[in-house]
Every structure is written in structure tokens, then in C-alpha cells.
């Protein structure tokens, strides 16, 4: 119990003093996960919007696969990306394994299905609500999607944050493709895993506190957006 309290004190000191190692790890975590989020939104949102509007053979099967991919274990995805990027793999020549780029690729692949599947749901629900009105107005498909995305902007922001939350919190994929190399590919979750294994609870706890704080800030931001627009009923 003494150790535990001591670890908390140390953790607080690390955070408050702006320990350079800690800051470096946090910065890399944010860089990797925010990049992955940007890519996932750029790919997943249009894909979700398309799936919400389009009707084609095999659509239902595709939706089942997409929804299943939301639950893909990060370690499995990490393994697949590892195989693709390792020297003998199809993309081995790029030399990306154990780089932040590899981690961004893995996290993008991990959360793109989440963004796509959840946006599809949001946009399809809205389309059902607006469908007749939009057909009455003779909107082009492009305009229709643009309006639906704008109408669903709050719910879609929540979708993006869900994706970010998944990326910043996962450890399985980044530890396999990043390798948890100090100063190069060490992020918060892999550092926590390592420091805990080493018995260095202070740094692990400090990082844990930061992760929790980020989660709180993200959810606070969502709430602020909703309250700010006075549209909390529809997000």
C-alpha cells in the first residue's frame, strides 16, 4: 500500500514537472492516433455515406463484414500489418516496420471500419427521416450526402471521437508493428505495458493518468459541442 501511494505521488510529480520522456511519449501517441483518425475519417466517412445511400447486390453481406471488423482484435490486425510490412512481406521493401508510420497504418486500419460502420448508421437513419422530403426537392445524390453529413455533424463528431478513443487506447497493434522502441515508437499504452512489467509503476501510472485525462477532455469536448449548439437532442 505504501508503494502504491508513493507511485501515485511520483506519477503526479512526473506529470506536473513536464518530464521530457513522458512528454515525448504523449506527443508521439497523439501524433500517431490523430494521424490515424484523420486517415480513417477521410476514408471511412465517405465510405459510410456511400453505403448509407447506395443499394447494390451484396450490400447486406458487406455491412455484416464491416460491422464484424469493428470488433477486430488489435493484436490480430497488428499481426497482419506486421506480416505485410516485414522484410519478406509484400510491402517489406518500404522499410516501414518499427516506425511511427507503421503504427499509423495499423491504427488507421483498425478504426476505419469503426468510422465507416458508425457513420453509415448515422447517415442512413437521417436519410430515412429526410428521404421523402429530399426526393420531393429533387436533390442530386452528391448534394443529398453533403446535406446529410452536415445534418449529422454532431453525431459524426461523436463517431470520430469513438474512433480516436479506440486508437489512443489500443496496445496490441502498435506494440507489434512499432516494437515499443524508446524515443522512436514508444507510445503511452506500450510504455504502460513495459513499465508495469518492469515494476516501474510511477511512469506507468503517470501515463495512465494522462490517458484518462485525455479521455475526459475528449468527452468534455463532445458535451461542449452539443451544449454550444443547443442541439443535444439530436446528436
Amino acid at each position, binding site marked *: 500500500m505504501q508503494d502504491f501511494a508513493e507511485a501515485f505521488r511520483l506519477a503526479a510529480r512526473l506529470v506536473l514537472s513536464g518530464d521530457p520522456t513522458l512528454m515525448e511519449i504523449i506527443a508521439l501517441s497523439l501524433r500517431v492516433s490523430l494521424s490515424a483518425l484523420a486517415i480513417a475519417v477521410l476514408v471511412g466517412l465517405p465510405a459510410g455515406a456511400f453505403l448509407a445511400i447506395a443499394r447494390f447486390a451484396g450490400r447486406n453481406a458487406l455491412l455484416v463484414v464491416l460491422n464484424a471488423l469493428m470488433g477486430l482484435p488489435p493484436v490480430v490486425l497488428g499481426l497482419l500489418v506486421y506480416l505485410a510490412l516485414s522484410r519478406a512481406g509484400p510491402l517489406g521493401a518500404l522499410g516501414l516496420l518499427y516506425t511511427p508510420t507503421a503504427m499509423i497504418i495499423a491504427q488507421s486500419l483498425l478504426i476505419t471500419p469503426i468510422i465507416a460502420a458508425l457513420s453509415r448508421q448515422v447517415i442512413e437513419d437521417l436519410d430515412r427521416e429526410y428521404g421523402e422530403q429530399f426526393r*420531393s426537392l*429533387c436533390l442530386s445524390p452528391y448534394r443529398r450526402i453533403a*446535406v446529410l453529413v452536415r445534418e449529422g455533424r454532431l453525431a459524426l463528431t461523436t463517431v470520430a471521437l469513438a474512433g480516436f478513443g479506440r486508437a489512443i487506447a489500443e496496445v496490441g497493434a502498435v506494440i507489434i508493428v512499432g516494437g515499443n522502441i524508446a524515443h522512436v515508437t514508444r507510445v503511452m499504452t506500450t510504455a504502460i505495458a513495459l513499465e508495469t512489467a518492469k515494476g516501474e509503476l510511477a511512469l506507468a501510472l503517470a501515463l495512465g493518468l494522462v490517458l484518462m485525462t485525455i479521455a475526459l477532455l475528449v468527452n468534455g469536448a463532445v458535451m461542449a459541442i452539443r451544449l454550444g449548439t443547443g442541439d443535444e437532442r*439530436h446528436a
Partner: protein
Amino acid sequence: MPEAAPSLPLSADRAGAPLLPARIGGLVFETAGMRLLGPLDLDLGPGTVTVLMGPNGAGKSLLLRLLHGLVPPTSGTILWGGAPPTEPVRRRQAMVFQSPVLLRRSVAGNIAFALSLRPGSRVAHARRLDALLDMADLTPLAHMPARRLSGGEQQRLALARALALDPEVLLLDEPTASLDPAATLAIERIVRQAHDRGTKIVFVTHDIGQAGRLADEVVFLHRGRITEHTPADAFFDRPASREARDYLAGRIVL
């Protein structure tokens, strides 16, 4: 001309052959083996307020959707000035639904969105926006989120948005079904102004008083068939069909 007309300039020249008269022939709509409408024939002339009346389930709303091309008929034809209600025809019509579907934007934003679907300069659209807000008595609420409005205000906005499209034909599906008398009268006033400017009105209602206030002619529907199509005076004085007589007398029509 009514006084409101000059303040609401038309957004564009009306192109193409006139939509009216509309000719509906042998129209049938079936779903899952059930015949919900028809067969029915109906001619709609220009310049009048046509009220579609009848009990719930008679097929009034369905007929309106068919006229607007939102659902395809099982058989039969609907011709607006010789053309079926595909997009080119639908663009010259506008429809107001029973429960307004407003965008999550300001009141002005909702009208501006409809205006953006029609040609016209920014200045012309801005002028029309002001005129439409004024006509619907929504100017003080212009910057309110549309979904915060009361039911009556929302429906006035839906009507203003429909009129922003500068339709030749305005189709209304029980727009006042859930409104109180004052809100209902406000809607009727705007509809009448649109009619005075030359817009053909097709108005669905099951409210006898409302039909009496608005109708030039009444189409009475019962179980998917038209039992009569007569000028309003004749309809209310001496309805020809037994169903309409019962309905007007306040007897339950099944």
C-alpha cells in the same frame, strides 16, 4: 392582385409547357397484393384549390404522393401537362408534409437551402428570403434553430420553404392535422396567398371546416375510390355520394 404578391418576386421564369391540366387515368396502387387506391380517373385544372377529402385510410395521402411522383403507380397514368411526375415535373411542384421535416439549421437557413436549389443571383435570393420570412410571419425568428420552433411555426416554415421553390403546383398533405385553430388559420392564409399568385393548390384534409374555407372543388375519396369530384358549393350543399353525405353529416364512414 392581392397586396402580398408584389413583395414576393418570382425566382425564375417558368419554363416548359404548363403542368396543368393534369390527367390521371386508370390509376391503381397495390402493395403486397392489397389494392390501396383505384382504379381512379381525375382531371385537375389550373387556378383552383382542389381539396382531397375523405376518412382516414381513404388513400388521400397516397394519391398526393403518386401525383408528386414519390411512389410509382402499379398501373395507370399520371400526366402533368402530358408528362409523368419524374424529376423535371417534380421540380415545378412542391410538397408540404403532415409533419414538417426541417433541417437542423436556422429558420432562414432552411429557406435559403430551398432557394439554393433554384437559379437566381445572391441578391435575388436574399430579397426572396426576406419576402418569404415576412409572408410566413417568421422574420423575428429568422435566426432561431428551426427545430426549436413550435409546431405551428415549424409548419409555416415548411410552407415558406416549399414556396421558396416557386412551385406551379403546391401539394399539401394534412399540414394542419396537429395544429390549433390559430396556427391552422395562419397556414390557410399563406396557402390562399399562394393561390392568389396563381399557384395550383392540391390540399389533403379530413377537416370539413377547413375544406369549406379553402376549396374551390372537392375530390372525395373513400376506400381508394373517388366517390365524387364536384365544385365546393355543390359538394357542401348537396353531396352526390352517400359516403360524402354521411361524412358531412358527421356519421362515421367506414
